């Protein structure tokens, strides 16, 4: 009972906030909107923590198998007696972990935003959207039904659209929002068909039924289409949806552009929560991915490819938020890599726990990085690292937390990132090739993060564009508090025995790693940091030198491997230019032309027949006579039997 109360409280608070702010906020709640939303969120976050405590320690005993629980369910839409969509709240380790992550980070971002967007005209709308997003994300993670996932999946997408396009006066923001939505929509097309396939092959959209009727899943594996079983097709297509949301290659192009949104939004949506939805999806449907062999391989490969690709691109970017965005993509790639490994079966527990653990820790330190970057951007009024430098004196707290986060993401013990990433690498240990690549990603991560760190806080101070303003007291509080909380979380989260909380099938899996396994990743990270320090700690010619060394490869990476251009070519030239234009042309000229031609033709006939009506009496009589004659002939030739 208590769990139901908490769970409903978690989800309904942001919903209430959205409704109130959305309907009345504009006129009645000008400045208090932020605080109202924050208050609601804090209730929600508190409830999430209470629920976690209740679930892990009251309902279940830690260290034993975790029993999934359903606190709430109602029939939303029935297609037929056996196929229906229920909405409800499903609690297990995974969803409770996500509830905690989402509500906590969201609370902090709310708090941060109260100050950060103070000067915005559409302050209330912003918080309404933020609440909508939080609600959708919370609804997503507790789904009981494939269609519920899809439902909230789309709502998350639209709130992301709204928030990216928050500064809609800027054309770049509009097009970025559109791009994000359309690309994820394209992915969701696959997701939807995947849902249909999976739902039908296992005769239900309900997750419980889906997992329980593994026999159906097995049976479905026997029937092949283009050489693949239904469940493979289904999981692959659903993964397409996940890959779109999680900005995996080749559907990642929207994420860097999405940085057009306000920085707190980037922290919440495009770093900590929404973009990991793909990881969550695969984890949630893990039993299905386990039975679909090919899909697991695809997930692994896509994850690692994206991770590497993003890491390489991140090394060349100069926009602070874009670097962070590519870093996000890279880290999510790692998570999916871990999950894919787990689904392949060899290192089932390690991969699964590692990826979820990384998801959790990443949520905090990436949010921290973004929020800290937000402070920096606020300070220098620019996203470009060339406008920054030497900020460690003016922004000491920011500098400190940024450093902690960088260390964490690079995997330096004893910060949280170390533990989670270590677990993923542990899972990959049996595949030397992949392990090597993962190490490379790890080293690159350390390099580009510290490149960013040095360029921002060390290096040569850029000329300030305007007189630096001293932070006000409220700014100190609103910025400082979230940063400190997140930094603490970043520092200590690693010590959570994560495998006891979230693990496949709810069976606890304590992670054990030997010291030997620690060394390579830490070494790689330290190498990366060292190179970054060598190149960027002080202003020098070394970076240019380095770039020259890599030559064409550098410029291709700087241009993000021309993937954007390729997409632009396909959409603008082919879809719009060829297909759309010809469809519109055909419709006007051919189909509608036929209609108009028919009318014209009748008119012409009419004109043609005019001469028949000549006005000559004898002509009339002639036709009279001929008509009679012809009819007589026809009738005489015709025999009725």
């Amino acid at each position, binding site marked *: 009972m208590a769990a139901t109360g908490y769970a409903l409280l978690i989800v309904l608070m942001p919903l209430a906030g959205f409704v109130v702010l959305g309907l009345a906020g504009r006129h009645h709640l000008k400045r208090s909107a932020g605080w109202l939303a924050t208050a609601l969120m804090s209730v929600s976050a508190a409830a999430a923590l209470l629920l976690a405590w209740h679930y892990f320690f009251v309902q279940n005993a830690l260290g034993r198998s975790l029993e999934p629980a359903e606190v709430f369910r109602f029939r939303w839409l029935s297609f037929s007696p056996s196929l229906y969509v229920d909405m409800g709240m499903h609690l297990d380790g995974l969803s409770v972990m996500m509830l905690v992550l989402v509500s906590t980070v969201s609370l902090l971002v709310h708090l941060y935003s109260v100050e950060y967007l103070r000067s915005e005209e559409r302050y209330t709308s912003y918080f309404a959207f933020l609440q909508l997003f939080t609600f959708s994300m919370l609804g997503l993670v507790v789904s009981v039904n494939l269609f519920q996932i899809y439902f909230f999946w789309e709502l998350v997408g639209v709130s992301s659209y709204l928030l990216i396009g928050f500064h809609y006066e800027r054309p770049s923001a509009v097009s970025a929002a559109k791009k994000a939505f359309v690309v994820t929509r394209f992915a969701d097309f696959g997701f939807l068909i995947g849902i249909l396939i999976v739902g039908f092959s296992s005769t239900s959209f309900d997750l419980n039924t889906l997992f329980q009727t593994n026999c159906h899943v097995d049976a479905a594996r026997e029937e092949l289409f283009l050489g693949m079983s239904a469940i493979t097709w289904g999981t692959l297509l659903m993964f397409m949806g996940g890959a779109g949301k999680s900005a995996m290659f080749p559907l990642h192009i929207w994420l860097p552009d999405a940085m057009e949104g306000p920085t707190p939004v980037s922290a919440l949506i495009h770093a900590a929560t929404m973009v990991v939805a793909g990881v969550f999806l695969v984890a949630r449907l893990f039993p299905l991915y386990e039975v679909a062999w090919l899909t697991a391989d695809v997930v692994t490969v896509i994850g690692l490819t994206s991770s590497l690709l993003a890491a390489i691109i991140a090394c060349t970017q100069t926009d602070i938020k874009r670097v962070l965005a590519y870093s996000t993509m890279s880290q999510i790639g790692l998570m999916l890599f871990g999950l894919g490994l787990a689904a392949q079966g060899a290192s089932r527990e390690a991969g699964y726990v590692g990826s979820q653990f990384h998801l959790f820790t990443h949520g905090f330190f990436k949010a921290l990085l973004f929020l800290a970057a937000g402070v920096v951007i606020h300070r220098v009024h620019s996203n470009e690292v060339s406008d920054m430098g030497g900020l460690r004196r003016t922004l000491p707290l920011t500098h400190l937390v940024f450093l902690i986060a960088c260390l964490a993401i690079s995997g330096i013990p004893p910060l949280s990132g170390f533990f989670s990433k270590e677990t993923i690498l542990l899972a990959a240990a049996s595949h030397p090739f992949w392990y090597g690549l993962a190490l490379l990603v790890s080293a690159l991560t350390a390099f580009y993060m510290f490149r960013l760190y040095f360029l921002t806080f060390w290096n040569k101070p850029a000329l300030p564009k305007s007189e630096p303003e001293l932070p006000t007291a409220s700014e100190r509080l609103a910025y400082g508090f979230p940063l400190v909380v997140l930094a603490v979380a970043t520092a200590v989260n690693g010590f959570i025995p994560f495998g006891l909380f979230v693990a496949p099938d709810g069976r606890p899996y304590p992670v054990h790693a030997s010291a030997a396994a620690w060394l390579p990743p830490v070494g790689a990270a330290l190498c990366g940091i060292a190179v970054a320090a060598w190149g960027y700690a002080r202003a020098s010619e070394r970076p240019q030198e380095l770039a020259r060394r890599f030559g064409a490869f550098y410029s291709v990476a700087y241009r993000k491997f021309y993937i954007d251009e390729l997409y632009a070519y396909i959409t603008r030239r082919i879809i719009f230019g060829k297909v759309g234009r010809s469809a519109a042309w055909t419709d006007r000229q051919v189909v509608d032309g036929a209609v108009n031609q028919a009318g014209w033709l009748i008119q012409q006939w009419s004109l043609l027949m*005019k001469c028949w*009506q*000549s*006005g*000559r*009496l*004898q002509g009339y*009589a*002639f036709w009279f*006579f001929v008509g009679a004659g012809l009819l007589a002939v026809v009738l005489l030739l015709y025999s009725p039997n």
Partner: protein
Amino acid sequence: MDVLNFLLITASGLFFIGVYGFLTRRNLLTMLISAELMLNGAALNLVAFNRYRWPEELDGLFLAVFIVAIAAAEAALLIAIVLRLYRNTRSVDVSDITELKH
């Protein structure tokens, strides 16, 4: 029967001559005469059939009588109208009355 055939052929001849005249003559009055020829052909047919084929009753004969009467009425009316037309157009040529067309 020979008489009947002869009469029928004559009647048809009258009828078709009437048709031909109606279709080719320019003068309205000649056209009227042609129409009368057509009527007479029909009347002759009726009388002949009555006399030689169905002599029991006099249906054909009666109809022929009425045809003659009606033809007279028609002719009277037509002449009146043609007179009117002549007043208005100074012509009794059929090719001149083509103002109403299309």
